[in-house]
């Protein structure tokens, strides 16, 4: 055997022995967050273990031939982990994913915080499911959205998460009040409050009478929206009187459910009332009503 052949044979031997010595680290493809795992090693002597995770890294000496224990605390954060073993002729690496454990928390975005009653599709909610370690739970999970206000039937809808997110769009209820908007998944739930307020007045009825001073006093009936909710005090109601001398307008705020105003004296006027875009009845003062 010449020198060249000997060298070639030696190279092959070194390569084969290195291959035989190399560790084959066996880990599960996926590990649930917070679960410990054990990685068997072969050979003897000491090596350095490196663990690179999304939020946790570690470097420590390990004894080859013994199993490497990764505690649940090492594997709390969902994501990709790389394990590298260096030294002792046992250089090797492997990787695996940690996935979220069961749902423990629901992050809930609800809009708007104040909404008119009986409006279709006006309330939206987005729920994000997390486990106890703040990992997004990516497994499809049913999320139940409920909207309830005291004294009215509950509105309920269930949606399944996709990529950890579920969303819904709901009509506002007919009754005014602080509505509880709840998103729940498993044992976890989060509540938001949506204030349902009366919508625009449904119709406005007014009466007119002459005051002692000769002016015209106009008073509405209780002003309600189309679901029968009292329109909130403070809402502006505009009274207008048109006669031969011109136009008079008085803005009045609803107080204890009704609006009232005093218009200038007139013998023959057309009086109207409105709030926002809603017109009320008209009165022909001094003529036929």
């Amino acid at each position, binding site marked *: 055997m010449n020198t060249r052949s000997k060298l070639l044979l030696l190279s092959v031997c070194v390569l084969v022995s290195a291959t035989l010595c190399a560790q084959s680290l066996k880990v599960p*493809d*996926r590990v649930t967050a917070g679960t410990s795992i054990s990685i068997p090693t072969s050979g003897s002597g000491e090596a*350095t273990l*490196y663990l*690179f*995770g*999304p*939020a*946790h*890294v*570690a*470097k420590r000496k390990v004894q080859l031939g013994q199993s490497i224990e990764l505690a649940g605390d090492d594997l709390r*954060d*969902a*994501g*990709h982990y*790389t394990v*590298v073993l*260096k030294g002792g002729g046992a250089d090797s*690496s492997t990787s695996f*994913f940690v*996935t979220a454990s069961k749902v423990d928390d629901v992050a809930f*975005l609800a*809009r*708007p915080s104040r909404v008119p009653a009986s409006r279709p599709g006006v309330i*939206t909610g*987005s729920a*994000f499911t997390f486990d106890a370690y*703040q*990992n*997004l739970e*990516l497994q499809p999970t049913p999320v139940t959205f409920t909207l309830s206000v005291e004294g009215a039937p509950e509105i309920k809808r269930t949606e399944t998460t*996709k*990529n*950890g*997110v579920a*969303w819904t*769009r709901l009509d506002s209820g007919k009754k005014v009040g602080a509505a509880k908007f709840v998103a729940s998944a498993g044992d976890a739930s989060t509540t938001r409050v949506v204030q349902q307020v009366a919508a625009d007045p449904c119709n406005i009825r007014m009466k007119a009478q002459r005051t002692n001073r000769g002016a015209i006093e106009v008073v509405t009936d209780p002003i309600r929206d189309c679901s029968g909710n009292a329109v909130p005090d403070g809402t502006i109601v505009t009274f207008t009187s048109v006669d031969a001398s011109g136009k008079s307008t008085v803005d009045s705020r609803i107080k204890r459910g009704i609006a009232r105003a005093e218009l200038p004296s007139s013998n023959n006027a057309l009086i109207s009332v409105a709030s926002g875009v809603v017109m009320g009845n008209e009165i022909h003062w001094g003529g036929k009503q």
Partner: protein
Amino acid sequence: MKNSFSSGIGISLAAALILLFVLASLPPWLIAAADANTVKIDASAAQPRQVEDATVQAIQRDYGRAWQTLSQALSENRANLLNSSFVGIANDKLTRAVNEQRKEGLRRKYIDKSHKVEIVFYSAEGSALQLRDTVQIEIQLLDGDKVVHTENATRHYIALMTPTENSWKVRVFEAVPGA
């Protein structure tokens, strides 16, 4: 005249060589970071709200910037850099990673070569946006300056972004198994 023309060419050549040298000596993440075209965004499947063009551009800019920040923070072990692009859970976790790396004398280099981003969720009121990203990436894990592991990989990430005063920031950031 001829002499001044020749010396002009000489100066230009020298300047070009210096520029080439400077570029060659820059860390890879800085060169990659300069290329905004590495982030391709598809917003056609977003639910429940359609993503406005201006928002797509903002996400392209801010998500790309978040990767630059991430690469630099993990490479140089500087947690304070993260605040410009990450908030909430993502910021907490990455800060922990950087602090533990520094404590152990470890570093990691992410050289992200391309991002194929799909916006999958955009909340009705526009306050949250979720994306899936398929990244072509080179990863180097270092003990001090010694590379202990290197790999070229395709990785999948899920990110949840929320708007702040003048940009979008990453609130949740997780590597996920491929589909």
